[in-house]
């Protein structure tokens, strides 16, 4: 069954006993979770907790020491997954190809796999850029874009794939609060429009509670809480509470 023949619009993701160490230092210590079809699942945790490493495992960029990641029951590192399902990732930095302009970046998947003729690719690129609120930037180079624009172009590039699973790595980092809200709204709106399963990794509590259908708290490589946002708020684990309730409390003299 090829990508084109895959009718369902979202996929189920399962992670079993995922462990990963770098130079003997454990980063993931046995992570188990399931993401249901079409939901927005947020993995939240402080910097250095292993969120991005987990995300890289979810799309097959890293091989685990132990455990497995299954997309609709198929191992992510098997040859079948990329052939059967369309997966996409929005990188923290955007990871746009600096040698290509915006239109070439967004249309790269279609042009490299020769899925559509050039005129059609041009139309799709324009549509996707419009969808993320960008018009008339097709000819610009990535170096000419602001951080927020890069993120949006990166989202447009992911949308061109018409993904069944889309992963976002820190989508609001380095953005001002207004732009962060806009990106959060985009994620929810795109999830509603495309029905793609969305996994968002972030340390932004406002974003997480604002967009998540379900969420997980990852602390020092372990999942310490898993559930709906209101359940997470009720979590009594002291480390989770400390993370969720951390605030600026300065005494003014």
């Amino acid at each position, binding site marked *: 069954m090829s990508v084109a023949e895959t009718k369902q619009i979202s996929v189920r993701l399962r992670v079993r006993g995922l462990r990963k160490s770098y130079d003997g230092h454990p980063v993931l210590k046995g992570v188990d979770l399931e993401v249901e079809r079409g939901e927005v699942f947020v993995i939240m945790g402080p910097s250095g907790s292993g969120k991005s490493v987990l995300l*890289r495992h979810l799309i097959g*960029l890293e091989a685990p020491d132990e455990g497995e990641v299954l997309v609709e029951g198929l191992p992510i590192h098997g040859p079948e997954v990329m052939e059967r399902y369309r997966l996409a990732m929005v*990188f923290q930095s955007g*990871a746009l190809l*600096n040698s290509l302009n915006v239109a070439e970046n967004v249309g790269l*998947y279609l042009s490299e796999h020769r899925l559509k003729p050039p005129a059609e690719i041009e139309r799709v690129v324009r549509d996707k850029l419009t969808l993320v609120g960008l018009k008339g930037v097709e000819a610009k180079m990535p170096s000419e874009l602001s951080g927020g624009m890069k993120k949006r172009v990166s989202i447009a590039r992911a949308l061109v794939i018409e993904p069944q699973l889309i992963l976002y790595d820190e989508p609001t980092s380095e953005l001002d609060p207004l732009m962060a809200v806009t990106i959060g709204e985009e994620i929810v709106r795109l999830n509603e429009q495309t029905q793609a399963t969305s996994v968002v990794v972030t340390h932004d509590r406002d974003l997480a509670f604002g967009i998540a259908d379900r969420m997980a708290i990852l602390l020092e490589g372990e999942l310490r809480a898993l559930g709906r946002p209101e359940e997470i708020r009720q979590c009594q684990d002291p480390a989770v509470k400390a993370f969720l309730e951390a605030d600026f409390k300065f005494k003014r003299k």
Partner: protein
Amino acid sequence: MFQNIGEMLVLFWRTLKALPLAFRHGQKVLGQLFEIGNASLFMACVLSLFIGGVLSLQSGPVLAERGLSNLLGGIVGMSMCRELAPVMMAVLIAGRIGSSMAAEIGSMRVYQELDALRTMNINPIHYLVLPRVLAISLALPALVVFSVLTGWLGGALAAVYNPKIAITFSTYYSYLDLVVDPWDVINGLIKSFCFAVVIGVVSCHQGLTTIGGPRGIGRSVTKAVVNSIVLILILDYFLTQLLLHFE
């Protein structure tokens, strides 16, 4: 070191396996060819003109003292096409093009562009390595042809206008024609093709395995150039031995 060599051989094999996709990446190959030619042709010609000239200046007076100055065309002609042009051009291209390949792919690796390609199911070897290795393998032999011709010209100019040598153009070229045969030129082209593959694979490998930030990119560039030159000089010896068997 052995791990590096192993990885480079694997990369070479995967690039070879991707060769049937070469036509699909024709535009990228042309783009790379233009970059290599544009960046190196003028420099290659200037360098070769002076290498030929120096060769004439060094050997001409010695030959002239013994009444053998007529042989100069043959000596310069043979040296340029069999050894100096392929090796000097390979060193030049390793410095100019190999370094830029390693830097470009290395920065793509550091800034997650390679990961982005993988998530789009685009193989970096097909997308980045194949066009570069193909382009450099076509460009270097072409540059060697220009290098040989300008090197011969440089040798001729030095031979004619230096009073200690003072032979005519026709003497120079008639002996060059007498000594150098097409096999000598082909010999140089075969060598340059092999050197080009080495530069392409070594530089792309260094780029693909870059770790760290800007410092890592710098390290990769240095290693790409140094390793390429070392391998070119070692390979030159063995290729010379091998090609002598076919004469």
